[in-house]
Protein backbone atom coordinates (compact mmCIF):
# COMPACT_ATOMS: atom_id res chain seq x y z
CA UNK A 1 0.00 0.00 0.00
CA UNK A 2 1.44 3.36 -1.01
CA UNK A 3 2.39 5.64 1.85
CA UNK A 4 0.59 8.92 1.99
CA UNK A 5 2.73 11.79 0.84
CA UNK A 6 4.32 13.72 3.70
CA UNK A 7 5.73 17.03 2.53
CA UNK A 8 9.16 18.08 3.77
CA UNK A 9 9.49 21.73 4.66
CA UNK A 10 12.80 23.51 5.09
CA UNK A 11 12.33 26.43 7.46
CA UNK A 12 14.92 29.17 7.86
CA UNK A 13 14.21 30.53 11.33
CA UNK A 14 15.92 33.53 12.79
CA UNK A 15 17.65 32.66 16.04
CA UNK A 16 16.31 35.46 18.20
CA UNK A 17 12.61 35.32 17.35
CA UNK A 18 11.30 32.56 15.14
CA UNK A 19 13.61 29.82 16.30
CA UNK A 20 12.85 30.76 19.88
CA UNK A 21 9.18 30.72 19.00
CA UNK A 22 9.50 27.19 17.68
CA UNK A 23 11.31 26.22 20.90
CA UNK A 24 8.42 27.64 22.91
CA UNK A 25 6.02 25.49 20.93
CA UNK A 26 8.16 22.47 21.77
CA UNK A 27 8.57 23.25 25.46
CA UNK A 28 4.85 23.85 25.80
CA UNK A 29 4.20 20.40 24.29
CA UNK A 30 2.11 21.83 21.50
CA UNK A 31 1.25 19.24 18.85
CA UNK A 32 2.00 20.12 15.29
CA UNK A 33 3.06 18.21 12.16
CA UNK A 34 6.66 16.98 12.26
CA UNK A 35 7.37 17.79 8.63
CA UNK A 36 9.73 20.68 9.27
CA UNK A 37 13.50 20.70 8.96
CA UNK A 38 14.40 23.81 10.92
CA UNK A 39 17.58 25.70 10.09
CA UNK A 40 18.51 28.42 12.53
CA UNK A 41 20.02 31.50 10.95
CA UNK A 42 21.21 34.53 12.87
CA UNK A 43 18.76 36.84 11.16
CA UNK A 44 16.11 36.57 8.45
CA UNK A 45 18.18 39.21 6.66
CA UNK A 46 21.03 36.75 6.38
CA UNK A 47 18.96 34.33 4.31
CA UNK A 48 20.45 34.44 0.84
CA UNK A 49 18.33 33.58 -2.22
CA UNK A 50 20.89 30.82 -2.77
CA UNK A 51 19.74 29.00 0.34
CA UNK A 52 16.18 29.02 -0.88
CA UNK A 53 17.00 27.85 -4.40
CA UNK A 54 19.32 25.23 -2.95
CA UNK A 55 16.59 23.94 -0.64
CA UNK A 56 14.29 23.45 -3.63
CA UNK A 57 17.16 21.97 -5.63
CA UNK A 58 17.76 19.37 -2.92
CA UNK A 59 14.10 18.38 -2.97
CA UNK A 60 12.33 20.47 -0.36
CA UNK A 61 8.59 20.44 -0.99
CA UNK A 62 8.16 23.76 0.75
CA UNK A 63 10.43 26.50 2.05
CA UNK A 64 9.62 28.91 4.87
CA UNK A 65 11.59 31.98 5.89
CA UNK A 66 10.62 33.36 9.26
CA UNK A 67 11.93 36.35 11.20
CA UNK A 68 11.20 38.95 13.82
CA UNK A 69 8.35 41.40 13.41
CA UNK A 70 9.31 44.73 11.84
CA UNK A 71 10.81 46.90 14.51
CA UNK A 72 11.84 43.97 16.69
CA UNK A 73 14.87 42.71 14.80
CA UNK A 74 17.77 41.89 17.10
CA UNK A 75 20.05 43.53 14.55
CA UNK A 76 17.66 46.46 14.15
CA UNK A 77 17.23 46.38 10.35
CA UNK A 78 17.85 42.82 9.17
CA UNK A 79 14.24 41.87 8.74
CA UNK A 80 13.55 44.96 6.62
CA UNK A 81 16.18 43.84 4.14
CA UNK A 82 14.70 40.35 4.27
CA UNK A 83 11.26 41.72 3.52
CA UNK A 84 12.55 43.25 0.28
CA UNK A 85 14.76 40.42 -0.79
CA UNK A 86 12.26 37.66 -0.08
CA UNK A 87 9.57 39.58 -1.98
CA UNK A 88 11.82 39.50 -5.03
CA UNK A 89 12.59 35.80 -4.58
CA UNK A 90 8.90 35.06 -4.33
CA UNK A 91 8.15 36.95 -7.54
CA UNK A 92 10.94 35.18 -9.38
CA UNK A 93 9.87 31.71 -8.24
CA UNK A 94 6.31 32.40 -9.31
CA UNK A 95 7.48 33.81 -12.61
CA UNK A 96 9.33 30.65 -13.59
CA UNK A 97 6.28 28.60 -12.75
CA UNK A 98 6.90 27.11 -9.32
CA UNK A 99 3.66 26.55 -7.44
CA UNK A 100 2.92 29.67 -5.46
CA UNK A 101 2.01 27.78 -2.30
CA UNK A 102 5.44 26.24 -1.91
CA UNK A 103 7.29 29.32 -0.69
CA UNK A 104 6.27 31.59 2.13
CA UNK A 105 7.54 34.01 4.70
CA UNK A 106 6.27 34.81 8.17
CA UNK A 107 6.89 37.00 11.20
CA UNK A 108 7.04 34.87 14.33
CA UNK A 109 8.21 36.31 17.60
CA UNK A 110 9.77 34.40 20.50
CA UNK A 111 6.43 34.45 22.31
CA UNK A 112 4.37 33.17 19.40
CA UNK A 113 4.69 29.44 19.82
CA UNK A 114 1.03 28.97 18.88
CA UNK A 115 1.39 31.07 15.74
CA UNK A 116 4.35 28.97 14.69
CA UNK A 117 2.43 25.74 15.02
CA UNK A 118 -0.43 27.28 13.04
CA UNK A 119 1.86 28.39 10.25
CA UNK A 120 3.42 24.95 9.98
CA UNK A 121 0.06 23.16 10.10
CA UNK A 122 -1.34 25.42 7.38
CA UNK A 123 1.76 24.91 5.28
CA UNK A 124 1.59 21.13 5.54
CA UNK A 125 -2.10 21.13 4.68
CA UNK A 126 -1.48 23.32 1.64
CA UNK A 127 1.40 21.18 0.45
CA UNK A 128 -0.23 17.77 0.75
CA UNK A 129 -2.44 18.10 -2.33
CA UNK A 130 0.44 19.51 -4.38
CA UNK A 131 2.47 16.36 -4.05
CA UNK A 132 6.26 16.15 -4.12
CA UNK A 133 8.16 19.09 -5.55
CA UNK A 134 9.69 17.87 -8.79
CA UNK A 135 10.16 21.07 -10.76
CA UNK A 136 13.35 22.45 -9.25
CA UNK A 137 14.51 19.25 -7.65
CA UNK A 138 17.99 18.24 -8.77
CA UNK A 139 17.73 15.75 -11.61
CA UNK A 140 21.06 14.67 -12.95
Amino acid sequence: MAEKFEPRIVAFLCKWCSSAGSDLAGVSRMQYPPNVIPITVMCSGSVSPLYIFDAFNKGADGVLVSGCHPGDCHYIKGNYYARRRIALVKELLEFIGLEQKRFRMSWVSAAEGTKYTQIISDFVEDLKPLGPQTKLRRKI
Partner: protein
Amino acid sequence: MVNVEDLRKEAQRILREGKVKYVIGYEKDQNGLLPKPAFIEEPEDVARLIWNPTCVHNLTKFLVDEKKRKALEKKPDNRPVGIVVKGCDSRAIVVLLQEKYIEREDVHILGMSCERNGVIDEKKLAKKLKGQNAENVEIDEDGNFVVTSANKTIKFQAEELLAERCLECPANYPVIYDLLLGEKAKKKAAEPFKSLGKMESLSEEERWAFWTEQLSKCIRCYACRSACPMCYCDECVVDTINFAVTADTTASEKAGKIKWVEKSPVPSENFVYHMVRAMHLAGRCIDCGECERVCPLDIPLRFLNKKLEKEAKELFGYDAGFDPNKPSLVSSFKDEDPEDFIR
Protein backbone atom coordinates in the same frame (compact mmCIF):
# COMPACT_ATOMS: atom_id res chain seq x y z
CA MET B 1 20.92 64.70 -35.21
CA VAL B 2 24.12 63.51 -33.67
CA ASN B 3 27.15 64.38 -35.72
CA VAL B 4 29.90 61.84 -35.33
CA GLU B 5 32.50 64.51 -36.12
CA ASP B 6 31.70 66.18 -32.81
CA LEU B 7 32.48 62.89 -31.09
CA ARG B 8 35.75 62.51 -32.96
CA LYS B 9 36.76 66.09 -32.16
CA GLU B 10 36.19 65.63 -28.45
CA ALA B 11 37.96 62.27 -28.42
CA GLN B 12 40.90 63.85 -30.19
CA ARG B 13 40.99 66.70 -27.72
CA ILE B 14 41.09 64.54 -24.62
CA LEU B 15 43.70 62.27 -26.14
CA ARG B 16 45.87 65.12 -27.26
CA GLU B 17 45.69 66.78 -23.84
CA GLY B 18 46.64 63.50 -22.21
CA LYS B 19 43.43 63.60 -20.19
CA VAL B 20 42.66 59.94 -20.85
CA LYS B 21 44.69 56.82 -21.46
CA TYR B 22 42.57 55.71 -24.38
CA VAL B 23 39.05 56.09 -25.68
CA ILE B 24 36.72 53.08 -25.92
CA GLY B 25 34.30 53.44 -28.80
CA TYR B 26 32.89 51.67 -31.84
CA GLU B 27 34.71 51.14 -35.14
CA LYS B 28 33.62 49.61 -38.42
CA ASP B 29 34.13 45.91 -38.89
CA GLN B 30 35.08 45.16 -42.49
CA ASN B 31 33.61 41.70 -42.31
CA GLY B 32 30.29 42.11 -40.54
CA LEU B 33 27.42 44.46 -39.84
CA LEU B 34 28.01 45.14 -36.16
CA PRO B 35 30.99 47.31 -35.20
CA LYS B 36 33.99 46.17 -33.21
CA PRO B 37 34.89 47.76 -29.89
CA ALA B 38 37.75 50.19 -30.58
CA PHE B 39 40.47 51.25 -28.18
CA ILE B 40 41.86 54.50 -29.54
CA GLU B 41 45.18 55.57 -28.05
CA GLU B 42 46.50 58.05 -30.61
CA PRO B 43 44.71 61.34 -31.41
CA GLU B 44 45.20 60.70 -35.14
CA ASP B 45 43.16 57.50 -34.96
CA VAL B 46 39.87 59.07 -33.87
CA ALA B 47 38.60 58.88 -37.44
CA ARG B 48 37.99 55.20 -36.72
CA LEU B 49 35.15 56.07 -34.35
CA ILE B 50 31.66 55.61 -35.76
CA TRP B 51 28.16 56.13 -34.45
CA ASN B 52 25.01 54.59 -35.91
CA PRO B 53 22.18 52.23 -34.97
CA THR B 54 24.47 49.20 -35.23
CA CYS B 55 26.34 50.31 -32.10
CA VAL B 56 24.55 47.77 -29.91
CA HIS B 57 27.36 46.71 -27.57
CA ASN B 58 27.57 47.86 -23.98
CA LEU B 59 31.17 49.03 -23.75
CA THR B 60 30.96 49.47 -19.98
CA LYS B 61 32.25 45.94 -19.53
CA PHE B 62 35.66 47.22 -20.59
CA LEU B 63 35.72 49.57 -17.62
CA VAL B 64 35.49 46.47 -15.43
CA ASP B 65 38.32 44.90 -17.46
CA GLU B 66 40.37 48.06 -17.04
CA LYS B 67 40.01 47.92 -13.28
CA LYS B 68 41.00 44.26 -13.16
CA ARG B 69 43.97 44.91 -15.40
CA LYS B 70 45.18 47.80 -13.24
CA ALA B 71 45.00 45.54 -10.20
CA LEU B 72 47.57 43.23 -11.79
CA GLU B 73 50.00 46.00 -12.77
CA LYS B 74 52.82 47.07 -10.51
CA LYS B 75 52.74 50.73 -11.56
CA PRO B 76 49.34 51.31 -13.12
CA ASP B 77 48.58 54.39 -15.18
CA ASN B 78 45.79 55.93 -13.14
CA ARG B 79 44.50 58.33 -15.74
CA PRO B 80 40.83 57.93 -16.63
CA VAL B 81 39.53 56.09 -19.66
CA GLY B 82 37.27 57.74 -22.22
CA ILE B 83 34.18 55.79 -23.20
CA VAL B 84 31.36 56.25 -25.71
CA VAL B 85 28.02 55.40 -24.10
CA LYS B 86 24.37 55.26 -25.00
CA GLY B 87 21.61 55.89 -22.48
CA CYS B 88 21.51 52.31 -21.22
CA ASP B 89 25.30 52.09 -21.05
CA SER B 90 25.50 55.28 -19.00
CA ARG B 91 23.16 53.74 -16.48
CA ALA B 92 25.52 50.78 -16.20
CA ILE B 93 28.24 53.25 -15.27
CA VAL B 94 25.92 54.75 -12.65
CA VAL B 95 25.44 51.32 -11.09
CA LEU B 96 29.21 50.77 -10.98
CA LEU B 97 29.56 54.16 -9.31
CA GLN B 98 26.79 53.38 -6.84
CA GLU B 99 28.65 50.26 -5.79
CA LYS B 100 31.95 52.15 -5.65
CA TYR B 101 33.46 49.67 -8.08
CA ILE B 102 34.88 52.57 -10.06
CA GLU B 103 35.27 56.23 -9.15
CA ARG B 104 33.85 59.09 -11.17
CA GLU B 105 37.40 60.27 -11.91
CA ASP B 106 38.22 56.93 -13.53
CA VAL B 107 35.99 57.58 -16.50
CA HIS B 108 35.47 60.36 -19.03
CA ILE B 109 32.01 59.79 -20.45
CA LEU B 110 31.19 60.69 -24.05
CA GLY B 111 27.43 60.40 -24.03
CA MET B 112 25.45 59.77 -27.21
CA SER B 113 21.71 60.24 -27.17
CA CYS B 114 19.64 57.80 -29.17
CA GLU B 115 17.28 60.71 -29.86
CA ARG B 116 13.88 59.05 -29.80
CA ASN B 117 15.39 55.98 -31.44
CA GLY B 118 17.72 53.22 -30.39
CA VAL B 119 19.75 50.39 -31.88
CA ILE B 120 18.82 47.61 -34.25
CA ASP B 121 18.04 44.02 -33.48
CA GLU B 122 20.22 41.98 -35.85
CA LYS B 123 17.74 39.13 -35.96
CA LYS B 124 14.84 41.37 -36.93
CA LEU B 125 16.97 42.85 -39.71
CA ALA B 126 18.02 39.42 -40.95
CA LYS B 127 14.36 38.42 -41.20
CA LYS B 128 13.48 41.56 -43.14
CA LEU B 129 16.35 41.02 -45.55
CA LYS B 130 15.46 37.34 -45.96
CA GLY B 131 18.99 36.04 -45.59
CA GLN B 132 20.82 38.81 -47.44
CA ASN B 133 23.65 40.37 -45.51
CA ALA B 134 23.59 44.02 -44.55
CA GLU B 135 26.65 46.22 -44.65
CA ASN B 136 25.52 49.27 -42.72
CA VAL B 137 22.60 51.01 -41.04
CA GLU B 138 22.29 54.76 -40.60
CA ILE B 139 19.55 57.08 -39.33
CA ASP B 140 18.14 59.71 -41.68
CA GLU B 141 16.82 63.12 -40.60
CA ASP B 142 13.30 61.74 -40.14
CA GLY B 143 14.43 59.07 -37.73
CA ASN B 144 14.08 56.18 -40.18
CA PHE B 145 16.67 53.45 -40.52
CA VAL B 146 18.46 53.31 -43.85
CA VAL B 147 19.98 49.88 -44.46
CA THR B 148 22.70 49.27 -47.02
CA SER B 149 22.65 45.77 -48.42
CA ALA B 150 24.21 44.41 -51.61
CA ASN B 151 24.92 47.98 -52.75
CA LYS B 152 21.27 49.02 -52.41
CA THR B 153 19.74 51.18 -49.70
CA ILE B 154 16.41 50.28 -48.13
CA LYS B 155 14.47 52.48 -45.75
CA PHE B 156 12.65 51.05 -42.74
CA GLN B 157 10.50 52.54 -40.03
CA ALA B 158 12.53 52.53 -36.85
CA GLU B 159 10.01 50.38 -34.96
CA GLU B 160 10.45 47.55 -37.45
CA LEU B 161 14.11 47.11 -36.61
CA LEU B 162 14.52 48.48 -33.10
CA ALA B 163 15.67 46.13 -30.40
CA GLU B 164 12.88 45.13 -28.00
CA ARG B 165 14.63 46.84 -25.13
CA CYS B 166 14.74 50.12 -27.03
CA LEU B 167 10.97 50.00 -27.41
CA GLU B 168 10.67 49.94 -23.60
CA CYS B 169 13.60 52.19 -22.77
CA PRO B 170 12.90 54.60 -19.90
CA ALA B 171 15.49 57.14 -21.00
CA ASN B 172 17.34 56.77 -24.26
CA TYR B 173 19.86 59.47 -23.50
CA PRO B 174 22.83 59.32 -21.13
CA VAL B 175 22.04 60.24 -17.55
CA ILE B 176 25.66 60.91 -16.69
CA TYR B 177 28.26 62.35 -19.03
CA ASP B 178 31.19 64.66 -19.54
CA LEU B 179 30.01 65.45 -23.03
CA LEU B 180 26.50 64.95 -24.39
CA LEU B 181 25.82 64.74 -28.10
CA GLY B 182 22.23 64.84 -29.25
CA GLU B 183 19.15 66.02 -27.46
CA LYS B 184 17.83 64.71 -24.20
CA ALA B 185 14.63 63.95 -26.02
CA LYS B 186 12.44 61.54 -24.17
CA LYS B 187 10.65 59.47 -26.71
CA LYS B 188 7.17 58.35 -25.89
CA ALA B 189 7.99 54.91 -24.54
CA ALA B 190 5.56 52.15 -25.24
CA GLU B 191 4.26 50.79 -21.95
CA PRO B 192 7.37 49.87 -20.09
CA PHE B 193 7.53 46.15 -19.37
CA LYS B 194 5.11 45.45 -22.21
CA SER B 195 7.13 42.45 -23.36
CA LEU B 196 6.56 40.88 -19.95
CA GLY B 197 2.79 41.16 -20.25
CA LYS B 198 2.38 38.11 -22.44
CA MET B 199 4.61 35.99 -20.22
CA GLU B 200 2.79 37.05 -17.08
CA SER B 201 -0.59 36.25 -18.57
CA LEU B 202 0.41 32.63 -19.14
CA SER B 203 -0.65 30.05 -16.60
CA GLU B 204 1.79 28.66 -14.08
CA GLU B 205 2.20 25.42 -16.02
CA GLU B 206 2.69 27.26 -19.32
CA ARG B 207 5.37 29.43 -17.77
CA TRP B 208 7.06 26.38 -16.32
CA ALA B 209 6.98 24.61 -19.70
CA PHE B 210 8.43 27.71 -21.37
CA TRP B 211 11.32 28.10 -18.97
CA THR B 212 12.10 24.38 -18.86
CA GLU B 213 12.31 24.30 -22.64
CA GLN B 214 14.48 27.39 -22.82
CA LEU B 215 16.84 26.53 -19.99
CA SER B 216 17.29 22.97 -21.22
CA LYS B 217 19.14 24.48 -24.17
CA CYS B 218 21.67 26.19 -21.93
CA ILE B 219 25.17 24.76 -22.31
CA ARG B 220 26.55 26.89 -19.46
CA CYS B 221 29.03 28.67 -21.64
CA TYR B 222 28.56 31.64 -19.26
CA ALA B 223 28.70 34.11 -22.13
CA CYS B 224 25.77 35.94 -20.49
CA ARG B 225 27.83 36.40 -17.38
CA SER B 226 30.93 37.45 -19.32
CA ALA B 227 29.08 40.06 -21.35
CA CYS B 228 27.33 41.64 -18.35
CA PRO B 229 29.14 44.67 -16.88
CA MET B 230 27.49 44.03 -13.51
CA CYS B 231 28.90 40.53 -13.23
CA TYR B 232 32.29 41.59 -11.97
CA CYS B 233 32.82 39.24 -9.03
CA ASP B 234 36.29 37.77 -8.97
CA GLU B 235 34.83 34.47 -7.85
CA CYS B 236 31.37 33.72 -9.12
CA VAL B 237 29.02 31.56 -7.11
CA VAL B 238 29.09 28.87 -9.80
CA ASP B 239 32.87 28.69 -9.97
CA THR B 240 33.99 27.58 -6.55
CA ILE B 241 37.67 27.74 -7.31
CA ASN B 242 38.99 28.54 -3.86
CA PHE B 243 38.95 24.97 -2.71
CA ALA B 244 42.37 23.43 -2.92
CA VAL B 245 42.32 19.69 -3.43
CA THR B 246 45.52 17.98 -2.28
CA ALA B 247 46.50 14.37 -1.75
CA ASP B 248 45.40 14.69 1.86
CA THR B 249 41.90 15.96 1.19
CA THR B 250 39.55 13.31 2.51
CA ALA B 251 36.52 12.02 0.66
CA SER B 252 34.14 13.57 3.16
CA GLU B 253 35.88 16.94 2.87
CA LYS B 254 35.47 16.81 -0.86
CA ALA B 255 31.87 15.73 -0.45
CA GLY B 256 31.23 18.48 2.06
CA LYS B 257 32.63 21.23 -0.15
CA ILE B 258 29.91 23.76 -0.67
CA LYS B 259 28.95 23.67 -4.29
CA TRP B 260 25.74 25.54 -4.90
CA VAL B 261 25.47 24.54 -8.53
CA GLU B 262 26.85 21.42 -10.15
CA LYS B 263 28.73 21.79 -13.40
CA SER B 264 26.38 19.47 -15.28
CA PRO B 265 24.35 21.51 -17.77
CA VAL B 266 21.07 19.86 -16.86
CA PRO B 267 17.86 21.85 -16.45
CA SER B 268 17.72 21.73 -12.64
CA GLU B 269 21.22 23.17 -12.33
CA ASN B 270 20.69 25.63 -15.16
CA PHE B 271 17.65 26.97 -13.31
CA VAL B 272 19.68 27.62 -10.17
CA TYR B 273 22.40 29.41 -12.13
CA HIS B 274 20.03 31.67 -14.02
CA MET B 275 17.84 32.43 -11.03
CA VAL B 276 20.80 33.28 -8.85
CA ARG B 277 22.15 35.54 -11.56
CA ALA B 278 18.79 37.25 -11.88
CA MET B 279 18.67 37.81 -8.11
CA HIS B 280 22.21 39.15 -8.07
CA LEU B 281 21.19 41.60 -10.76
CA ALA B 282 17.97 42.74 -9.06
CA GLY B 283 17.98 46.51 -8.99
CA ARG B 284 21.28 46.52 -10.90
CA CYS B 285 20.33 45.33 -14.36
CA ILE B 286 19.77 48.26 -16.71
CA ASP B 287 18.61 46.14 -19.63
CA CYS B 288 21.47 46.66 -22.05
CA GLY B 289 20.37 43.36 -23.60
CA GLU B 290 23.90 42.02 -24.00
CA CYS B 291 23.14 38.75 -22.19
CA GLU B 292 20.44 37.86 -24.68
CA ARG B 293 22.40 39.14 -27.67
CA VAL B 294 25.47 37.04 -26.93
CA CYS B 295 23.67 33.81 -26.02
CA PRO B 296 24.64 31.36 -28.78
CA LEU B 297 21.44 29.40 -28.30
CA ASP B 298 19.00 32.31 -28.34
CA ILE B 299 17.69 31.88 -24.82
CA PRO B 300 15.45 34.86 -23.95
CA LEU B 301 17.36 35.83 -20.83
CA ARG B 302 16.14 39.41 -20.68
CA PHE B 303 12.75 38.24 -19.39
CA LEU B 304 14.20 37.06 -16.10
CA ASN B 305 15.96 40.31 -15.40
CA LYS B 306 13.09 42.38 -16.75
CA LYS B 307 10.67 40.71 -14.33
CA LEU B 308 12.76 41.71 -11.36
CA GLU B 309 13.22 45.18 -12.80
CA LYS B 310 9.44 45.48 -12.97
CA GLU B 311 8.96 44.28 -9.40
CA ALA B 312 11.67 46.65 -8.21
CA LYS B 313 9.73 49.50 -9.79
CA GLU B 314 6.24 48.45 -8.79
CA LEU B 315 6.87 47.12 -5.30
CA PHE B 316 9.63 49.46 -4.21
CA GLY B 317 9.57 52.38 -6.60
CA TYR B 318 13.18 51.68 -7.56
CA ASP B 319 14.77 52.59 -10.89
CA ALA B 320 18.19 51.14 -11.56
CA GLY B 321 21.03 53.30 -12.74
CA PHE B 322 19.78 56.87 -12.43
CA ASP B 323 21.37 58.18 -9.26
CA PRO B 324 24.94 57.27 -8.31
CA ASN B 325 24.34 58.38 -4.75
CA LYS B 326 21.35 56.19 -4.16
CA PRO B 327 21.91 52.98 -2.21
CA SER B 328 21.31 49.76 -4.12
CA LEU B 329 17.94 48.07 -4.15
CA VAL B 330 18.67 45.27 -1.71
CA SER B 331 20.78 47.27 0.69
CA SER B 332 18.01 49.72 1.39
CA PHE B 333 14.41 49.55 2.49
CA LYS B 334 11.42 51.73 3.12
CA ASP B 335 9.01 51.49 6.01
CA GLU B 336 6.22 51.20 3.50
CA ASP B 337 7.67 48.17 1.69
CA PRO B 338 4.82 45.76 1.02
CA GLU B 339 4.41 42.88 3.43
CA ASP B 340 1.00 41.52 2.50
CA PHE B 341 2.64 38.30 1.42
CA ILE B 342 4.05 37.72 4.90
CA ARG B 343 2.00 35.68 7.30
